């Protein structure tokens, strides 16, 4: 079981969940097949990221860096100097076999140089197969509270301007030694849109309090289905009332 760490770095209107650089290196050296990893998700204690969202994003981040693994492997390539050495040995072996005139000792040395030694050299150069995995593969996520991340959340929350928030958060993250956060804020200072972040830079998650709940698979969206009593505007959850629903123009004829 390997331990990994993801950081829920606060940004304006949300959180970017990213994997620490140390974890990237650790997971990069672990084969994906059969990997058992426990991801510690470090977030602020404010509950702005729901456990379900955190679990989903952490698993995807762990999967990403497990798959981008580069296990140290040796590949067999014919080396010119080695080949020349082997070929000269084989020639010498052939000469010994011919010149031995039936004497067993030089013949044996000839056979050794001609066939056995090159065969052993080729065998020795081949990489050993990796051992079969012994763990039960799994990806587990545990939520942990991180004081440094909480400080960053406060900085983001108290600044009204995006750029000011990111500039101050950059300073704080540098002071706290959170390199991943400092690098993220540097990117956001160049372009404050989380939409412009690369896939390796993290997964954006909306704040739970601001999240406009998705219009889930619901007959509400099927035009043919008659309205239900619970669809009455008075019974709609308050957070849905903030949504910008398009009001159809009644002057247009129906299709």
């Amino acid at each position, binding site marked *: 079981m390997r331990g990994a760490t993801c950081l829920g770095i606060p940004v304006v209107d949300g959180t970017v969940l990213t994997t620490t650089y140390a974890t990237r290196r650790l997971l990069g050296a672990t084969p994906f097949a059969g990997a058992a990893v426990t991801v510690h998700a470090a977030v602020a204690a404010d509950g702005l990221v729901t456990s379900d969202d955190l679990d989903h994003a952490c698993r995807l981040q762990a999967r990403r860096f497990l798959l981008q693994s580069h296990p140290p492997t040796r590949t*067999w390539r014919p080396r010119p100097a080695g080949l020349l050495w082997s070929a000269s040995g084989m020639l010498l072996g052939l000469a010994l076999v011919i010149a031995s005139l039936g004497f067993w000792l030089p013949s044996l040395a000839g056979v050794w140089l001609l066939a056995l030694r090159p065969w052993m050299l*080729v065998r020795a150069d081949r990489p050993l197969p990796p051992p079969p995995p012994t763990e039960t593969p799994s990806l587990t996520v545990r939520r942990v509270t991180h004081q440094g991340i909480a400080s960053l959340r406060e900085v983001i929350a108290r600044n009204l301007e995006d750029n000011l928030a990111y500039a101050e958060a950059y300073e704080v993250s540098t002071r706290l030694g959170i390199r991943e956060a400092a690098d993220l804020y540097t990117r956001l200072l160049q372009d404050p849109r989380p939409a412009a972040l690369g896939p*390796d830079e993290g997964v954006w998650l909306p704040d739970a309090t601001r999240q406009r709940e998705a219009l889930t698979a619901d007959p509400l969206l099927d035009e043919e289905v008659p309205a239900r009593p619970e669809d009455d505007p008075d019974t709609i959850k308050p957070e849905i009332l903030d949504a910008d629903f398009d009001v159809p123009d009644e002057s247009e004829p129906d299709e």
Partner: protein
Amino acid sequence: MMRAVTDKPLTLRIPLHADAYAVLANETRWRGEFATVRLPYETRVLAESQLAPGAWVRLTAFTIGSGGEGGVIWIDLASPRPAPTEIIAGRALLRAFAADSSERRRILSRVLLHFVLLEYTEDAERTTWRAPALGDDIGGALVGGSISSSPTLWRALRSDMEQSRPSVVVGLRDAGGVPLAGRHDGLVTMPVALGGLKTGHLLASLESRWRGSLGRFSTLRGYRWFADHFAATPELSTSRFLSSLLRFGEYRTRHREVPDRLAELELPVYYPSTSSELRSLASAGLLPAAPGVFWDVSRPYGGDPLTAAGHAHRHLGAFGLTALATADDPTRRTNFLLAATAAAIVAAASGEMA
């Protein structure tokens, strides 16, 4: 001797030429066409969510067909960030099955097709699409096969999948130009449950199985060993059927052991050609079953659960496939996704995935 029409093998080709690609990529032209294209489909909006602030996306399901012996084919085009190629592949599929042809009618009488498409809403801010990963081995391509990164969208997808009870789930993903597999059009992975112990030993011994005489790498020997070893496994014949369709479309129906030379009109699918590629495949939990088709055995119960195919295989017992387009050219990647979908639909409608 005349054969009844119903006995003829099914064929399905959805090629997309550069001109058609440009038409489907044009939002204004597509919007006009979509009004007609959507008519034969039962349409349902599954969810709306944000991939980033302002980047609103809409997840829509389009259903067509009658669902006979071929069952329900659930086609997932909802990747973490919708790639232009995936959006265009989705539009091309909608257009293809809305068109009236006797072959399409034959297919639709046997299967029910359920396309789940993710597109940006009209006024949404677009996220910048980049290749999902930059790794230089096969893992870089596999990263792109993941489920949606938005928890809200994934919940909606999962709920729809459970309601649809699909027999086949196909995930279509643009993996971008992958350095290792960039000269190929792509590959298909299929979750297969072999059990933990067997999987571990198979992956550990994969390299030695692909060595011919004198210890040199041999593709021919590898695929022969695989065919002999898994002769009794039903997934093998499906893999070979899919491989034949993916490699040759309608031009060849007979399976060839190893692609010796790529013929004209043959889709150049990915297959390992060196020992180091086999090591990458083993590390990612993939077994090369047939050219272009790999068994995903990264988990003992069968495949990566963070792909739609792996999730459906484990939780719904469905047959799962993930098609990963890896070519350098976007049009080729779109065409690979369409070819993979066509292969899966023909295989399901022909009873090859039963």
